[in-house]
């Protein structure tokens, strides 16, 4: 019994050590963001120092452009999520409650578009976007984020709708409610928590997206991912500022992510793991 207890304790300690090791790079980024540029860029790392908010001030200062990129990130993530939900909810509703023989095929087809690699559609989208003026344009990027997330959103909303007992919807139909009335009065209120977590997942994925932002935007529609990537050639010049900008960009997502772990698993595995 005692040996079992001590193995348990040892395993607990091991788990904590592993967790801290995995988390360490993020912690180091966080520490660096509270240093001055001189403290950040040293041969012998500073583990103990008096924290300063200078780097955050520099990162957020007027002329740093931070707010411009943050605004673009927020705008594209939020609007793409709203459009995605607006497209996905009716489709998922029809498939979940009024299925026909083509439903399974359509659902699987929608999911399968998620597996087309971005480079497979990059070139025509780039050419068409530059022809119609959607390059470096917030709307253009937003619609790409919508397309990227729509399969996952449809799938998740569908799976949440399927959790609603069918009798409730049938009862509403028999009471003479139209399809749309049933959707708004019965189904949506019941699925609200599911819709919220679906939206959150789409928001996180859009916010963290980098391939489309880097290839399709330059400045006016550029997101935080593009801004932070622009530090890639700053050889040690702005490490503290880069860290502060990065912390501001990832902190909200890490916090949201911690709250949505389960939904994340459900959404990203297309319901195979709940």
């Amino acid at each position, binding site marked *: 019994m005692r040996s079992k207890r001590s193995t348990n304790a040892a395993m607990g300690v091991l788990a904590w050590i592993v967790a801290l090791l995995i988390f360490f790079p993020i912690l180091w*980024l966080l520490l660096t963001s509270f240093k001055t540029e001189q403290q950040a860029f040293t041969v012998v790392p500073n583990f103990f120092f008096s924290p300063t908010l200078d780097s955050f001030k520099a990162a957020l200062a007027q002329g740093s452009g931070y707010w411009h990129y943050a605004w673009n990130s927020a705008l594209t993530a939020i609007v793409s999520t709203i459009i995605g939900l607006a497209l996905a909810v009716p489709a998922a509703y029809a498939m979940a409650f009024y299925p026909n023989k083509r439903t*399974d095929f359509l659902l699987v087809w929608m999911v399968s578009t998620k597996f087309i690699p971005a480079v497979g559609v990059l070139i025509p989208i780039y*050419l068409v976007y530059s022809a119609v003026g959607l390059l470096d344009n917030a709307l253009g990027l937003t619609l790409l984020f919508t397309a990227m997330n729509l399969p996952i959103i449809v799938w998740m909303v569908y799976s949440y709708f399927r959790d609603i007992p069918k009798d409730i919807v049938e009862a509403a139909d028999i009471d003479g409610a139209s399809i749309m009335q049933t959707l708004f009065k019965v189904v949506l209120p019941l699925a609200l928590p599911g819709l919220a977590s679906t939206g959150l997942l789409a928001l996180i994925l859009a916010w963290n997206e980098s391939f489309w932002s880097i290839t399709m935007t330059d400045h006016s529609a550029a997101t935080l991912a593009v801004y932070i990537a622009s530090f890639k050639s700053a050889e040690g010049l702005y490490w503290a500022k880069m860290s502060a900008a990065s912390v501001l960009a990832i902190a909200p997502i890490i916090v949201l992510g911690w709250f949505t772990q389960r939904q994340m698993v459900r959404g990203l595995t297309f319901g195979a793991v*709940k």
Partner: protein
Amino acid sequence: MKAISRTAPSAEETGARSFARTTRLLMAPAVIFLLIWMLVPLAMTIYYSFQQYNLIMPMYNGFAGLNNFAILLGDPTFWKSLANTLIIVAASLVVTVCLGLALALLFNRTFVGRGVARTLAVAPFFVMPVVTGLIWKNMLFHPVFGLFAWMARQLGLEPVDWLAHYPMLSVVIMITWEWTPFALLVLLTGLQSLPEDQVEAAKLDGASAWQEFRHIVIPHLGQVLYVVVMLESIFFLTSFAEIYTTTGGGPGTATTNLPYYIFQTVFQQNDIGIASAAAIGAVILANIFAIMLIRFIAGNLNAGAAR
């Protein structure tokens, strides 16, 4: 009662017809959107792959037949990028799945502060890949100012220039750091749905820890593992940000994977035809995994319907 049953069929019929129309209208926007943003571009990529199409040399543009593919197959950089892509997928897959499984088993035990520790361990998955690249490049891998260099010096070793001398290993380390938490998260969710009574029964029957793992945990986790492997393969095939922010595909072509090769062909050489041919290659590669995964998802769907 009788009246209802007599009128019911016809009402149901007209109802069904209008239902069909309404449901089609409900599905149309999403389907059309995906057609325009995914399938039409894919078809255009296929079309471009048969065209000689260079943005800065438009005078030579025209039908090219299989020429782009011939050029591609004769280009050592393409083969190198294909090999790099597969190395990244295979290496990252082995490490993230093995490590993820070990960690999931570890974090499935009860210990003090389990929730907090688990939360810290999954955090890297939520970090923007661009930030991941910069953290590792500047603050950990840097041969002079990086933490690894300092640790090496503390141990009396020569600091290593990771990105220059072990570029592929470095890329795999970064991807592994980001995706092991994903494997951990999914596998842990799978473990937590492990049927308790089976475990108890096995223990009563005197099963050893290894037997319990081999005969109960692994079969139960089988389909979870399958999904993790397929999903990760598809994501690893398209790794981009970690390479873009750190090695830029180099040194030379040491870490140029297929997406990065296509990116360079489009934006540096402006060669739409060749890039499209390479993109078709990437789509085919992704499809090998996607078809298996889609079959699995579709199978799950039918099982759900039967329930």
